[in-house]
């Protein structure tokens, strides 16, 4: 009940295997770091979980709800989708105010005005951008936009937060705020977080558990300490030590 599980996931593009996961599970309330070379299938994994991409086969247990991914439609997956938040590497802001951007998910869920008002302000406070509420979102800087994207994804208090290299193009001060927010909601709201990152110290700093993807397969899955100090497979050893060029 209290976990996210994936079974027999297979994603192929033109006969080429992109993702091939037999079984994996994520505990509620934990933070997971996903690392691996480019093209290993990290983004595809998050997109499959977020129902943005349909695998050829596979099923998912979403904190107690079992779904067959290949036969899921937009409408039938909606109740699960609404329990997830997603932040991509490059945020796309709608041509509206910052407030309206953050409120969008709440409006989709048909909350009333006063609730929306309160939740949006709370979320903007988390990311320390309350003063920008009335500004147009497409005028924000990259760092601000990414923090607004985070506020937009956590404002409806999702059970699962999916982050795809969210800080890759941010400066250190924005990275700091971003990390602080996700740690805080991870603790306070017991939000499960899956974060892809190329920044190994970041994974080490934040994640409880790390997994290493290589050619579409999960080749290492362990507690963060073990993951970095005693990597079991040689691919991860090469990757962690920087010998793997990708």
């Amino acid at each position, binding site marked *: 009940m209290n976990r996210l599980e994936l079974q027999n996931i297979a994603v192929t593009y033109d006969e080429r295997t992109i993702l091939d996961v037999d079984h994996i599970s994520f505990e509620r309330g934990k933070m997971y770091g996903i690392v691996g070379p480019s093209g290993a299938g990290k983004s595809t994994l998050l997109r499959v979980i*977020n*129902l*943005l991409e349909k695998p050829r086969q596979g099923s998912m247990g979403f904190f107690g709800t079992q779904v067959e991914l290949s036969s899921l439609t*937009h*409408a039938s997956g*909606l109740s699960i*989708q*609404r329990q*997830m*938040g*997603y932040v*991509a590497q490059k*945020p*796309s802001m*709608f*041509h*509206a105010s910052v407030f309206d951007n953050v409120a*969008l*998910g709440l409006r*989709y*869920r048909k909350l009333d005005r006063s609730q929306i008002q309160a939740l949006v302000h709370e979320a903007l406070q988390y990311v320390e951008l309350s003063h920008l509420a009335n500004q*147009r979102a*497409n*005028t924000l800087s990259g760092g601000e936009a990414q923090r607004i994207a985070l506020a*937009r*994804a956590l404002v*409806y208090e999702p059970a699962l937060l999916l982050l795809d290299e969210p800080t890759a193009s941010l400066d250190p001060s924005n990275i700091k705020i971003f990390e602080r927010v996700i740690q805080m909601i991870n603790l306070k709201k017991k939000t499960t977080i899956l974060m892809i990152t190329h920044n190994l110290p970041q994974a080490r700093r934040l994640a409880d558990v790390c997994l290493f993807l290589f050619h579409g397969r999960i080749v290492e899955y362990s507690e963060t300490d073990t993951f970095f100090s005693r990597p079991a497979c040689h691919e991860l050893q090469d990757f962690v030590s920087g010998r793997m060029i990708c």
Partner: protein
Amino acid sequence: MMFTPDVWEVIWLSLQVTTTSVLIGILIGIPAGAFLGLYSFSGKRLIVILIYTCMGLPPVLVGVVVYLLLSRYGPLGSLDLLFSAEAMIIAQVILVTPIITGLTMAAVQAKENAYWETAKSLGASPFQLMVTIIKEARGGIWSGIAAAYGRAISEVGAVMLVGGNIEHHTRVMTTAIILETRTGNFSGGLQMGFVLLSISFLFNSFMMVGMLNQMKARKR
């Protein structure tokens, strides 16, 4: 310029027929265009080709087809709609709906990649997703509506055929121009043409102001 009541009547009918047609075209074309812009399905390619073809439908052809449908001897003859304002609206809806659909589709497709996933991951239902993308694509959709309005109000072939240019019933600006010209009253025809042009200009100006405001807002 002093207008006789007859002239006002013609202008007013033109505006009524065109506005009604474009509104109906919007109700059909925007959702249809957004759907085509967002979703892929088998047979979509064919539908898209048909829509782009229909964007350039010859008005006279539409007129003939609607005429034959509504004729007393045609399949819908019992409705007694031929030579009425409703008949003109039917013909114009057929003309403007593909334009609005096609340009909405193009506008939505241009926005689709960036915003589709964001809206979906924020929990939009299929309908909410469509509304969100339509809002994002509003600039392109407005120009589609402007194009449709311009085509409808200046169109003459179809409304002449199915409306019949009947005085006090179905005489609109374009058919009045034809009549004035046919009877040798060139200056009357030209002045009516000037009125038509002015209305087109005013309408497009409002559209442009709206679009420019939006562009400004984006740059700020």
